[in-house]
C-alpha cells in the first residue's frame, strides 16, 4: 500500500503489515499439481507473471527508468535544452504561450512554460531523473537503516528495544514536511564539494530516507519478535550459533519478503514526498527541473494555461501509479496466504 505523503499519513505502514507475508518459508501457496519442490520465490514469480496489472506497472517503470537514464539523448532528438528560454513562443502581453493548448506543436511536444518559454517536454524528461533518483536512494537508505535497527530492536529486546521504539515513536510524530522545508531553507549552497542542486538532492535523499526508516523499522521489529522464538532459531541457539550468525542466517532470510514488499511500495511514497517538497519550494533549485517545482510554478498560471499544470501532474500520477501497481503485485505474489 502506498503512503501518499501529500499530507503525511501516519498509519500507512500498518496497512502494509496487514498485507505483508509472514515468511516466505510458509508453504501455504504451493500448487497441487507440482510434484517437485518449488521455492517461495519461484511461486511468487509464477504469480507475478500472471498479474497483468502488475506487469503493466513494471513495464511503465522500466520505460520511465530508461527515459531518466537516456534523458540527454531523448531531449537531443525530440526537444530543446531544458533551461533554454524561448521568449518568441510567449505572448508578451499576458505571459502565456502563443497558440492554443499551451503552445503544443511538433517543435514543442508538451508546449512551453509560461513567461520564459522553456520546453516543457525536456523539463519533464529531466524531471524524471530527479524524481526517480531521490525516490530510489531514499528508499534504499530507509530500508537499510530500518532493517538494521528493526532487527536489533526485535532480537535483543529489553532496554534496547524500548529505546529504539521510543525513537521511532518520536520520529513518526514529527512533522516531516515542516522539518524538511525548515532544514532545506537554511542549507548552504555549497557543501562537501557538492554544488546547489547536488546539495539539495543529497538533502532530499537523507531527509526522506531518514523519516522513512521508522516505518520499515516497525515492521522488521514486529516480524523479528515473532520469528525469534521459532523452533529453528532455538535449534540454532542450542547448537551453539552466535548472535550474529542467527541474525544473518536465520532471521534475515525470513525478513526479506516483507522488506521487499515495503521497499517497492516505499518508492511511490517517496516520489510523492519529493514532489510535495518541490511544490513547497524545498526541492531542487530552479534551473534544474523537477515535477513538483513545475506544479508550484503552475499554481499562478493554471487558469490561463491549464496544460502547464496538467502535464507535470500527470507525470507524477503515472509514475506513482505504475510503482503502486507493481508494488501491489509484488505484495500479492509474496503473500503466502494469497490465492490470486
Amino acid at each position, binding site marked *: *500500500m*502506498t503512503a*501518499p505523503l*501529500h*499530507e*503525511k*499519513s*501516519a*498509519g*500507512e505502514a*500498518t*496497512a502494509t503489515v*496487514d*498485507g505483508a507475508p509472514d515468511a516466505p518459508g510458509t508453504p501455504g501457496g504451493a500448487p497441487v499439481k507440482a510434484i517437485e519442490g518449488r521455492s517461495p520465490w519461484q511461486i511468487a514469480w509464477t504469480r507475478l507473471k500472471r498479474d497483468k496489472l502488475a506487469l503493466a506497472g513494471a513495464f511503465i517503470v522500466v520505460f520511465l527508468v530508461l527515459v531518466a537514464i537516456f534523458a540527454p539523448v531523448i531531449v537531443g532528438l525530440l526537444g530543446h535544452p531544458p533551461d533554454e528560454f524561448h521568449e518568441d513562443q510567449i505572448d508578451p502581453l499576458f505571459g502565456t504561450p502563443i497558440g492554443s493548448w499551451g503552445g503544443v506543436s511538433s517543435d514543442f511536444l508538451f508546449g512551453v512554460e509560461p513567461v520564459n518559454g522553456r520546453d516543457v517536454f525536456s523539463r519533464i524528461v529531466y524531471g524524471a531523473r530527479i524524481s526517480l533518483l531521490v525516490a530510489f536512494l531514499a528508499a534504499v537508505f530507509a530500508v537499510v537503516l530500518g532493517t538494521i535497527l528493526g532487527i536489533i530492536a526485535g532480537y535483543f529486546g529489553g532496554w534496547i528495544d524500548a529505546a529504539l521504539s*521510543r525513537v521511532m*515513536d*518520536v520520529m*513518526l*510524530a*514529527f*512533522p516531516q*514536511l*515542516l*522539518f524538511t*522545508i*525548515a*532544514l532545506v*531553507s*537554511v*542549507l*548552504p549552497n555549497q557543501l562537501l564539494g557538492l554544488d546547489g542542486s547536488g546539495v539539495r538532492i543529497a538533502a532530499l535523499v537523507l531527509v526522506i530516507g531518514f523519516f522513512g526508516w521508522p516505518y520499515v523499522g516497525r515492521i522488521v521489529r514486529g516480524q523479528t519478535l515473532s520469528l525469534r522464538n521459532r523452533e529453528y532459531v532455538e535449534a540454532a541457539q542450542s547448537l551453539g550459533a552466535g548472535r550474529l550468525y542467527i541474525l544473518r542466517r536465520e532471521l534475515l532470510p525470513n525478513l526479506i519478503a516483507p522488506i521487499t514488499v515495503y521497499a517497492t511500495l516505499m518508492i*511511490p511514497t517517496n516520489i*510523492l514526498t519529493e*514532489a*510535495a517538497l518541490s*511544490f*513547497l*519550494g524545498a526541492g531542487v533549485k530552479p534551473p534544474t527541473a523537477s515535477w*513538483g517545482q513545475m*506544479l*508550484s510554478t*503552475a*499554481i499562478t498560471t*493554471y*487558469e490561463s494555461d*491549464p496544460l502547464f*499544470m*496538467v502535464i507535470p*501532474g500527470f507525470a*507524477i*500520477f503515472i509514475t*506513482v*501509479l505504475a510503482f*503502486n*501497481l507493481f508494488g*501491489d503485485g509484488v505484495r500479492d505474489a509474496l503473500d503466502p*496466504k494469497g490465492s490470486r
Partner: protein
Amino acid sequence: MLAYIVRRLFAVVVMLLVVTLVTLSIFFLIPKLTGSDPAAMFVGKQADPASIEAVRQKLGLDEPLLVQFWHFVSGIFVGRDYTGGGDTIHCAAPCFGYSFRTEQDVSSMLVDAFPVTLSMVIGAAVLWLILGVSTGVVSALKRGTIIDRAAMITALAGVSLPIFFTAMLAMLIFRTQLGWLNASYVPITESVGGWFGGLLLPWVTLAFLYAAMYARLTRATMLEVLGEDYIRTARAKGLPEPVVLGKHAMRSTMTPILTIFGMDLGALVGGAILTETAFSLHGLGGLAIKGVSERDLPLILAVTLITAACVVLANLVVDLLYAVIDPRVRLA
C-alpha cells in the same frame, strides 16, 4: 486504567519536550552553520550591530540552548517577560513568544489559524470515513466482481494523485471552468452557508485522497477478518449473516481503521500544509510555511509543537478507544 492514562500522558509530555528541543537545536545550530542570524532577521535589513545585539539579548538568543529551551517551555505554562532597554513586556501564558517578522503574539496567530484547519479537517474526515469505509466493505463483500475491481482501481488512482495536483484540477474544473464554489473561507460564526461553500472543494479534494486510502485498507482488513475462525464459528452456530458481518466482522475491521484515523486526524490538524497552500487557506499549515520561509523561529517552534501534540494525543485517544471497541484489548 487510570495508571495507564497517567503513564501515557507522561510519555506524551516527554515526547513533546524532545520534539521542541530538536527543533530548537536545529535553529540554534543554524547561525553557526550558515552565518545567518535570527536576531538580525528580527531587526530587519538595515540593522546596525548594536541594535542586533540589543534584540539578541531581549529575545534571549544569546543564552545557551538549554536555557532558551527552559524559557520557551516555562513560557507556555506561566508566561514570560521580555526585558530590554529598560522596559518589560509581559507575555501571558500560554506564551509562544512573538513573531520575529510581524512582532505579533504567536498565541493569537495560532488562535486565528486553528479554526480554519479544524473546519477543513473535520469536514473532510466525516466525508472520507463514510465514503472510504463503505467502499472498502462493499469491495470486500463483493470480492472479485466488477464493482470490487472498479472501486479498487479508482482507489489506487486516488492514492497515486498528489493532493496539490488534485486540488488544482478541482479548482480548474469547478472554479475556473464552471464558475462554482468561488467563495473563499468564511468563519462558521459569520455565515454557515458561506463556511460550507468555501470549504466544500477542499473537503472533497482531501476526502478523495483519504477515502481511497481507507477503502484499500478497509477491504484488506475485512478480507483478513472474514477468514478468521471466529467468523466461521459465528456462521456455524447459525447467526444470521447481518449479525456476523455487522457485529463480529465489523468490530475487528474497525480497529486498525481507527488507529490510522486517529493518527491521520492528528497529523492533518497539525498542518495540512499542501491542501492549505493549494487552496490558499490561512490555517496552521499556512502559518507553518510562512514561518519557515521567513525563518520565524517562534512561529516554527509553535506549529511544530502543536502538530506533534495533535499526533501523540490522537494516538493516546485511539489506544483508549481500542479497549472500548475490541473486547480482546485490555489496557495494563
